[in-house]
């Protein structure tokens, strides 16, 4: 039984079938990639896992528990964190503040204690700051710690976005196109960070990515979606040789 199980999930918006009876399993501690042409349903899939969408049919299980109907913030509390494709940071807040926001779900002291900021509240703040500093160190963000996020380059903003997800200390990390819009050097940096997260924190990672070179290099298993259907699942090698996948990406003529 994997850390995440997607069981016969169908997602329908009126006449549009975004996901069509999709089933697969993600093993604990692996890097799992979701690939497919644009519009295949990858982000919709991620939304079902993180709780933004509720599947029309089917269920999502996390560590054996049925979370299909659970609200997003409850899933975060269980250990699922998400980095968004279009960056959901607060541009006027510093990197540090954005990361501290990621700790919100773990903060216990209420408004009153926080407002007066004595004893327990202060202790909690220090603890969370410590964890956030570890993320800053891990992602090499020291030099922009106090910079408003909106003034950073795109590549750095993406890194902070991943950092915010990391600050939650997740057991399952959902990365939605973390390398979009980056040049080769930035991609290599991000790939290195993903590997570091995987190796050092033993986090299970679900990755949506278009750069197939990166996907083949990093993934343990790959699931391929096309028009909402799962058309392939396997190791990178198996997927590379899968005729249905080749056809979906390169067209019928190229299928063997």
């Amino acid at each position, binding site marked *: 039984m994997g850390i995440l199980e997607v069981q016969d999930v169908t997602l329908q918006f009126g006449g549009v079938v975004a996901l069509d009876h999709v089933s697969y399993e993600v093993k604990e501690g692996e890097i799992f990639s979701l690939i497919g042409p644009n519009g295949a349903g990858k982000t919709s899939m991620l939304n079902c896992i993180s709780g933004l969408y509720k599947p029309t049919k089917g269920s999502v299980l996390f560590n054996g528990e049925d979370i299909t109907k659970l609200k997003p913030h409850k899933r975060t509390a269980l250990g699922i964190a998400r980095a968004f494709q279009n960056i959901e940071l607060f541009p006027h807040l510093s990197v540090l503040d954005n990361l501290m926001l990621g700790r919100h779900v773990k903060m216990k002291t209420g408004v009153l204690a926080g407002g007066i900021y004595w004893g327990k509240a202060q202790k909690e703040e220090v603890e969370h700051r410590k964890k956030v500093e570890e993320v800053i160190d891990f992602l090499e963000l*020291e030099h922009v710690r106090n910079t408003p996020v909106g003034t950073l380059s795109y590549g750095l903003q993406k890194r902070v976005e991943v950092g915010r997800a990391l600050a939650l200390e997740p057991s399952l990390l959902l990365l939605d196109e973390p390398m979009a819009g980056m040049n080769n050097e930035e991609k290599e940096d991000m790939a290195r960070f993903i590997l*570091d997260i995987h190796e050092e924190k033993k986090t299970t990672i679900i990755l949506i990515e278009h750069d197939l070179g990166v996907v083949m290099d990093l993934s343990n298993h790959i699931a391929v979606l096309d028009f909402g259907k799962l058309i392939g699942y396997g190791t990178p090698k198996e997927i590379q040789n899968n005729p249905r996948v080749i056809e979906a990406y390169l067209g019928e003529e190229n299928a063997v």
Partner: protein
Amino acid sequence: MKDMTFPQALINRAKTSGNKVAIREKDYGIWNEYTYSDYYREVKAVSLGLAKLGFQRGDKLAIIGDNRPEWVFSELAAQSLGGISVGIYQESLPHELSYIIDNCDAQFVIVEDQEQVDKLLEIENELTKVQKIIFYDNRGMRNYQHEKLMYFKDLQSIGEAFDKEDPNYFEKEVEKGKYEDIAILSYTSGTTGNPKGTMLTYKNLVEMAKNLSKIDPLDEKDEYLSFLPLAWIGEQMMTISMAFYNGTVVNFPEEPSTVMENLREIGPHVMFSPPRIYEDMLSKFQVKIQEASWLKRKLYEWCKPIGEKVAEAHFNKKDISLKNKLLYKIADYFIFSAIRDHFGLLRIKRAYTGGAPLGPDVFKFFHSIGVNVKSIYGQTEVSGIAIVHQDGDIKLDSVGQPIPGTEVMISDDGEILIKSSSVCHGYYKNEESTKKTIENGWLHTGDAGYLDDSGHLYVIDRLKDVIRLQTGEMFSPQFIENKLKFSPYIKEAVAIGRDRPYVSAIINIDMANVGHWAEKNQLVYTTYQDLSSKKEVIELIQQQVVEINKQLPEKARIKKFVLLYKELDADDEELTRTKKVRRQFVAKKYASLIDGMYSTSDAINVEGKIRYRDGKEQTIKTTLQIVSMDEGEGAA
């Protein structure tokens, strides 16, 4: 204070002021302190660990990494056992590392992180003498299985276990150290040929600190930020020599990228850097003040002349009238102290500059805002500093006067010779070079210069580089280059003219500042190469050269220049690791380009190789425009 080796000085300080802060490092956002007791403990653990691994008296320990306490602990650890530390620049390429590590016969190497380990593993077959590679940042190292690799903390654990078995071993070994023993091997940057290992003893290094402190005293309350490579003699001098002698606190920045921020946080009392850092600060200021609000700009414009007047008075040793003193105090309150604070220079007693000449305009700027910038002159071979400007006795074009215990002489062909107790013992395993460099105790610096009546030394340039035009005139290329680099839009420049009819220049634009200018002028650009070839940028630089030509003697004026398509870089061997231009190499590499500048063409096709930081290479084919300065714009 008795003549002590560094380990002996450490034990002494740990005994007499064990609770005093010796070192600080910023980590995870906060400044962590190490007292002298902590320092002692850490060094002992590393030292005994090395001893257990078989480190013997006279063995060499190579150290490669950014400025961190572990670097310094490692150096002291080797020295405690009677060994010699060899600092290597952390940006060195594998083949450079291979040469130095083999040349110095190091059996043990302590490095910072995965990057350095990877470089060493790449050349593993050439490092036949190396027994162990020890790393102190274990990030990313979990999957490395190699019998030669060891984690720093594990080394310290071995050392601590040894200490329990034999608690007196460490102190006994340190006792054996003698003042005349060799402490470090410092490989000189080698603008020509392979780097040479300069052998410096404790006496060399401590005597220099002693002599410098006689005229520029520091004490235990002073703070210093160590951010330049510890492989550089200047940094060794301040972080180890001066710090142990005076008890100054050494602060290590969080990361190389946070140095400017950390400088502001610490506000050190003393600073030592090559001219580039000061030039960069000035360039940043020039750009920032242009964009500042009307009020700030006007304020600076009003206060600027007062600052300059006071600076002038300093340089000419004239008294300042009461009125001007008062005006300066007001100017300082309103703006100068703010500028200083912005750069972290609020508490600076002395800001030394050395390694290459600092342009007079940069000097004037810093003094006008109240920063006591002073030149020093020296070399690795004389333990760093031999000549310095005394406080209050600063002549803009000189490099100062000899520190106590130092004699200076000019040879018949104009070479500067120095004699002092800080002159090194020679080059490691290189008798020939040693004989050529040190004669009867006099160090041949290789620099051309002259002394004036008040004992101030003036450096013209490297003896080999002083340029003689075809017409016979002599000039210093560095003088011209400094003038060019004073412009915020010019990052680097190479002046050419040896055996040629006139002076020409290869110029690197400053990407950040020119890019900024381009954006403000609605100019679209992509890469460095693209920006350097834009007509508007060429005109911008041309204007700069026109201004600079006005300040140069007629024959030394730049007649033609090109904007190079790539920045000169140490990785391409065009600059040394301390960012000095390697003239002979550049002349050879860009020979056809230079020939083009002395032809009648106004453009030249070039083909060059660019190597990116990740190792990929690309050939660039482009046409460089050769810009001619018209008659009347200052051409000869």
